């Protein structure tokens, strides 16, 4: 195979026309030859900037060097030292703004495709039956740590603590472990059985106990975990909370959903399958409001369920918060982007079923505090998009459950739990990370926080003696 060192080795993808009708994975991943070839583009920098670009600081040049040699097991071992969920991260991390943004190759050409290589290593290791193992020199600490939420931050924190010798139990509110990886991100981006369930199994293989159907704040409080259940520290990784709505007329009509509800039905409950016993609305024409990754997931799900899909976003393409790759994939699949457009009212028939979404055109004004140019309505530019479903993807506000049932836990004005540099909250022995702290963010940032909290918990418990 000829290689243009300035360009990434391309990866095979399902044809857009075909994949828009199924829920199989879009990106098919590198073959071994492709992976070795891509790995050969890595310059193995001594002062590797990519490592600093990674929220969990994977030793990227070291694992890529192993791929170059064809040593997948070795590469997996390197990654496992830093990441509990490589098959997930290789798929859903925004590498273009993290590790790959730092790559020296990116100055003259395209960065090394670190994400695809990570995925290749994780998937191949899985096929080879390789599991992460506890360090040989690990000493049992005989201390119990509770982790609330089996999402990216919780699984990472739990895995790291188990490797340090702690006795870790994760309490998960849903019936399945994985958090946003199972309820939020669709099958076609992140296969549930093949990838997420296996990563969860790997965390369990480190000795972590996962209790599902356990809502902390209700079934047990954080006080109970300390006083009755004998835990010495608690990590709160309960994720983001209630979906936001626009508070426009007609929003209670039948056919208006939050992206969280729509995606949870499809992903966690498997409603995309005809055999599912959980219902989902199969819209003919759906309007997705918002421009983030969740909006892209909802749009691409609606498309696969048979709808003509319009993404309505109030700013322009340059401001879309979604990853460029997601937007690109969505466009390839035939999703229509109505940019600089904002809904003002949802129209429904006499039985309250949605028949349309009244929108107004927007134009960009002066940059606001966040540096983004804020959109302003163009007077008199209202128009109607006929549709039978509107899916609101406007982000979430924090879940009040843990805060209201735990004394001494302070939150900021947006409701996020306040933590210090060790991820400890205002309550001694209680740590937190992920969306519960930051508000809606990415899987990898949550993992980074989980990792940092594991370190913080270890320091805290070691000093306590």
């Amino acid at each position: 195979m000829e290689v243009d060192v300035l360009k990434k080795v391309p990866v095979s993808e399902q044809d857009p026309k075909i994949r828009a009708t199924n829920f199989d994975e879009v990106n098919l991943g590198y073959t071994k030859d492709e992976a070795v070839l891509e790995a050969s583009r890595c310059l193995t920098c001594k002062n590797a900037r990519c490592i600093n670009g990674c929220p969990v600081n994977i030793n990227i040049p070291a694992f890529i060097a192993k791929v170059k040699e064809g040593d997948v097991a070795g590469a997996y071992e390197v990654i496992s030292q830093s990441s509990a969920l490589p098959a997930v991260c290789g798929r859903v991390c925004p590498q273009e703004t993290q590790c790959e943004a730092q790559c020296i190759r990116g100055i003259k050409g395209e960065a090394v495709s670190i994400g695809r290589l990570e995925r290749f290593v994780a998937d191949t290791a899985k096929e080879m039956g390789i599991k992460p193992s506890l360090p040989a020199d690990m000493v049992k600490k005989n201390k119990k740590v509770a982790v609330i939420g089996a999402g990216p931050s919780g699984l990472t924190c739990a895995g790291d603590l188990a490797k340090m010798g702690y006795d870790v139990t994760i309490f998960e509110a849903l019936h399945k472990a994985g958090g946003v990886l199972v309820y939020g991100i669709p099958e076609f981006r992140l296969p549930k059985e093949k990838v997420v369930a296996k990563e969860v199994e790997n965390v369990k293989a480190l000795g972590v106990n996962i209790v599902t159907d356990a809502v902390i704040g209700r079934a047990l409080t954080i006080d109970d975990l300390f006083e009755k259940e004998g835990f010495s520290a608690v990590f709160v990784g309960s994720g983001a909370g209630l979906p936001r709505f626009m508070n426009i007329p007609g929003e209670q009509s039948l056919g208006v959903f939050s992206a969280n509800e729509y995606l949870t039905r499809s992903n966690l409950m498997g409603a995309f399958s005809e055999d599912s016993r959980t219902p989902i609305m199969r819209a003919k024409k759906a309007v997705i409001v918002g421009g983030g990754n969740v909006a892209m997931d909802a749009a691409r799900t609606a498309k696969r369920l048979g709808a003509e899909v319009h993404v309505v976003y109030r700013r322009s393409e340059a401001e879309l918060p979604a990853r460029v790759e997601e937007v690109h994939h969505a466009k390839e699949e035939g999703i229509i982007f109505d940019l600089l457009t904002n809904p003002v009212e949802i129209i429904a028939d006499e039985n309250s079923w949605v028949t349309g979404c009244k929108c107004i055109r927007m134009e960009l004004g002066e940059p606001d505090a966040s540096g983004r140019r804020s959109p302003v309505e163009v007077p008199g530019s209202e128009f109607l998009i006929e549709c039978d479903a509107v899916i609101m993807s406007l982000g979430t506000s924090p879940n009040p459950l843990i805060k209201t049932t735990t004394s001494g836990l302070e939150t900021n004005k947006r409701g996020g739990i306040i933590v210090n540099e060790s991820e400890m909250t205002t309550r001694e022995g209680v740590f937190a990370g992920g969306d519960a702290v930051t508000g809606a963010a990415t899987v990898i940032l949550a993992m980074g926080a989980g990792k940092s909290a594991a370190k913080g918990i270890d320091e805290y418990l070691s000093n306590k003696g």
Partner: protein
Amino acid sequence: MFEIVAKKQLGTNVWYMEVVAPLVAGKAMPGQFLIVRADEEGERIPLTVCDYDREKGIVTIVYATVGAETERMSRLNVGDRFADIVGPLGRPSDLVDLPIEELKKKKILFIAGGVGTAPVYNQLKWLHENGVEVDCIQGARTKDLLILEDEMKAVTKNLYFATDDGSYGIHGNVCVALQQLWDEGIRYDHCVVIGPVIMMKFACQLTKKLGIPTVVSMNTIMVDGTGMCGACRLLVGGEVKFCCVDGPEFDGWEVDFDQAMQRSRLYKTEEGRLMLKLKEGDTHHGGCGVCS
């Protein structure tokens, strides 16, 4: 976990089950609910808690078979296990936070309709155990649909029955019964209504007219039940509230019941198809062609 240890049929379509669920039984309070999944492919179904035994780790659920999932649940027997039971969910009733002495001074009326009797029983039992005696109107279309009669009698001061067809107790619905009591000079200063949405709507119209502050318990569409998906939203006093974390109990004078009834119809077509498929089994695709 989640083993069924007792099962009874309370009416034509109404079932009673005692289930091992220590995490729920350990903390459940009157007013809260739980979510069950019948099996690994099951939908998540919210149900009110009828009773709990903290020591034995057992919760009691009472439900009507209104769709395919509850129909499946009703086919489980003693010794079978649910795939999942999670809870307690939602906020406990505001009544349990009031000082007992204050509760004793109040003249409280409960109005229970259909399987709404189950969550009412849970509250009545708690009040009774704390020495607070209250009245209750229990309503149903007909006598056969009145459930838990003996249990309800044991925990109320006065228990009145109302049947639409006059087959038992007062002839008429719960509003007719309340008006009759009111006309007889019986007065209340707090009312809790739990039952079908249409019943709660009309009961609240009446209590508002009579000036009795009223609390209702809403049973909306839900998925996770923990404040994540937003499926359970409803309008209370013109504001969007989430039944699973802000409720399930709300000020009955402020709830938009018409909107709640509309939202409850969202998946009726899909649910109807699933029910037919379950009941008709292999003969389901027999040729009507509607859902081929």
